[in-house]
Each structure stands twice: as C-alpha cells, then as structure tokens.
C-alpha cells in the first residue's frame, strides 16, 4: 500500500510492478480492482511528492564548513 513514508523511488518502482502485474493475462477481477486502486494511490503519491518538492536553492560550503546560499553563476 502507498504509505507516506515511502520514498519517491520506492513508490515509482512499486507502481511499475503494479502496472506489469495488471498487464498479465488472467488477472482475477477482484485482484485487478485491488491492483488498480493500489496503482492509483501510488501514482498519486508519486505526483504529490514531485509537486510538493520545492525547487531547492543551491548552497555553498564556506571555509568553516557552514552552508550558505550560493550566489550562483555570474549573470544568471
């Protein structure tokens, strides 16, 4: 099942597996419905993870080993 602690990578892999499972011949109807629901949940979870992930700021490590914003890229 798609629980929230799952990483994006795990969720995506599970989703791929569910899709493969569904494409097999002779899936019992109940199993098919179950797989469909799980797949939709996983796909939503993946979507959410991507949408909610903020675009990150680039950081730079200063000489003391502290991280500060990187004033990146001349002219960017």
């Amino acid at each position, binding site marked *: 099942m798609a629980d929230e602690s799952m990483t994006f990578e795990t969720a995506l892999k599970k989703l791929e597996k569910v899709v493969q499972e569904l494409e097999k011949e002779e899936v019992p109807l109940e199993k098919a419905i179950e797989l469909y629901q799980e797949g939709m949940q996983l796909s939503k979870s993946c979507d959410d993870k991507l949408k909610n992930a903020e675009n*990150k700021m680039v950081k730079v490590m200063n000489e003391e080993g502290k991280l500060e914003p990187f004033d990146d890229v001349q002219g960017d």
Partner: protein
Amino acid sequence: MRNQYITVTALTKYLKKKMDIDPHLKQVLIKGEISNFKHHSRGHMYMTIKDQGAQIRAVMFASDNRHLKFLPEDGMQVLIEGNVSVFEAFGQYQLYIRSLEPDGKGALYAAYEQTKEKMEKEGYFDQQYKKEIPAFPGNIAIITSPTGAAIRDIISTLKRRFPIVQLTVIPVMVQGEEAVNSILTAISKVNHMHTFDTIIIGRGGGSIEDLWAFNDERVAKAIFHSDIPVISGIGHETDFTISDFTSDVRAVTPTGAAELAAPSLIDINTHLRQMQATLTRSTQYIIQTYKNELENYVSNLQRPNRLFREKEQYLDKLTDDMLHHLKRIYQNRLHTYQSLSIRFSHLNPKKQYQQLNETKKELTRRLDRQSKQILQAKKQQLQLYIHQLALLNPLEIMKRGYAIPYNMDGDIVSSTAYLYPGDDVTFKLKDGTLACSIQEVWRDEKDGR
C-alpha cells in the same frame, strides 16, 4: 727526490678542484639513456647514463629528486641538467643531476602513464568496485572551483533536469600547488557529513598541467575510497585523468556529469502519466473481458437447448474419440500378439525332439550291434570251456580203463594208507562196479620209509 711524490688524496683533490672550476663542467646539459637505476632507501638516486659510445655514473640527491613527477627507470631516454665532479672516496668522476625529465614525451605524461599503469595493476579501476549512482538523488555535493564554466554548466543542467534536488557546492582549488590538498579535504568533508547521496567532481578542460591534480594518486585513491558514489566530469572528451578511472561513473564533461547525476523531471512525469494511463486501460480491459464472459453465460442460460446441443455435440465427439482409441488399442494388441506368436513358433521344441530321437535311434543301433558281438564272443568262449571241461571229466578218463576205489562208507580212497588187508572196497569202472576184498597191502617204498 722523495719529496716529489704526492699522495692519492692530493692528486684527487687537485683533479676535483680542476673540474669544479671548469665553467663547462659546472653546468652541463646531457641526453642519454638510464641504466642500473637504483633508488636508495635514504632517498638518493643512483644510475648510469649511457649512449652507444660511452657511459657516466650519475647521482641525483634526495633534495633534487623530491620534485620529480615521474619515477626514472632503466631504458628511459632522459634530458639532464647538472654538473660533473669527482667523488673523492672512489676516485671517480660523476654526474650530479639537478633536474631530469624524459626525452620525447613530457615528464608529466610519463608520470601519468606510470601512475595509471600502477593503479590499474593494483585494481583501483576494477569494474567490480564501482558503486551505483542513486536514481533519484536528494542532495548532490559538487566538488569544483566556485568560479568558471564547470560549476555553471553543472548547476544549470541539474536545475533544468531535476530542480527538486539539493545542490551543495564544495569549493576547491582545481589547479596549482594547493589543488591536491584542497580536493582531498573536500572529499573527506563530504564523506563525513552523511547528508549527500552523490558527489560530482568536475573541472573544465585544460592542458595536462591544468588537470594535474586529478592525476594525483592521492586524489584518485580518495575518489576510489569515497563511500558516496562519485561521478567525474573532468576536462574534455579526449582527456582521461586518473580520477576518471577511479570514479564510479565517468562523464565526458561537467555537463555530462550533471546529466548522469539526476533524471529529467519531464521524463519522470511522462513516465508517470503513461503508467497511469496503462493502469486505467488495463483495468478497463480486464473488466470488459469479464463482462463479455458474463454476457456469454447469461445468453446461454436464456437458451438452454443451445447449451444442451453443444454438450450433445461434445458427447458425439467424445464417443468418436473413444471408439477411435479403442480401435487403436485393439490394433496395437493384435500386432503385439502376432509378433509374439511368430517368435513363439521359432521356439517350438519339436525339432529338438526329432534331433534327439535320431540320436537315440543311432545309439540303440550301436548298442544292439555291440551286444550281439559280445554275445557271440561269449558263446565261443563257452564252447571252448565246455570242450576243455569234457576233457577233464573222470568218466572220460574211466573210458580209457581207469577205476576209482570207494570204501564202504562210499568215500573215494586216494591212498593205500587208508586200507588194510580184509577191508572191503568197491571199484567203479566205466560200465559197472566191482566188489573186492583187500588181500595184501604193498605200499610204495617212498611212503613206507
């Protein structure tokens, strides 16, 4: 006269002084081939420099050879700068090398080749040690110069492809004296922080001197030993640094390294959409299939005779099949029986019996013949015996005039000893008996002795 002799030491000192003040010997530029190279444990290097016509002993002191970028070896063609002087203790003139570099390809290139060969032999480049790069990185450490094209290329590529990844620049000197230590410190720091899942180590293209820090054995080894997977993107396509060989993945350029470090978000989204579509389509297809099947059953139920007819047909087919099978089985058995009976007829004992009977008859014939022969022989022998016996018959003897005396008891009297005068005896002759009385007994002398 004696005062004109000088010591060996004095002579040698004189020669040394002569050489040391000679301006031509103070600084000589020589090219030749190294042989008998020996790197003494105390750091000095000893060797012979030779060409086809001559050779000269040479030494390079530790203080001079410390900065050599390559390790001299036998057979290497070299360019030498140094001076010639005398080593007094051995009375030997020799070359004191101050600087040395390979003739032909540069010193750096030679050093590069040596380090590469050595580390390859030691297994640092082996594919089995390569770590897997995370497919969806969360935090990438970028070890490179904070200025210049490389960092710009890496950041812009990653922001475009996968803007949700955290990027952290670890600024380092990528060339010059401090470069090696600076890079080593950065790799060590990143590994100690436990927040990164991928390292990109990069530098734009340049000459072999510019890229030198990445050919340093210590840097290459630090990359090899990094717990976090390292993607290298150093220089241009044609340049391979030693670090490129020890990194887990080597990209051709810094931009290439960024592309290998993270997937494209657009690609992922497309993939997700495709999977969602497949999910729905597959499920609908499955439902439709079951629906069709159900409808099929329902329509059959509405017209039960169709079901019945189908079963009838099926029964016919089964019956046919069964008959067919039975026939085949019967044919099979028949065939087996026939072949067995042919084999059996070959096994009939009649022939053997006839043969044995023939033998028996033959033996019987032989037995008959034999027994007849034996019988005949026995008959002849018997007649012979009978004839002989006839000759021995006492009656026969009596026929020739002999008589046999018997006493009154009827016993044969074989000696005069048994008879006395007055005894009655009878004599049997061939044709009757005589009754007689003994008048006198005359015994033979022989007996009456």
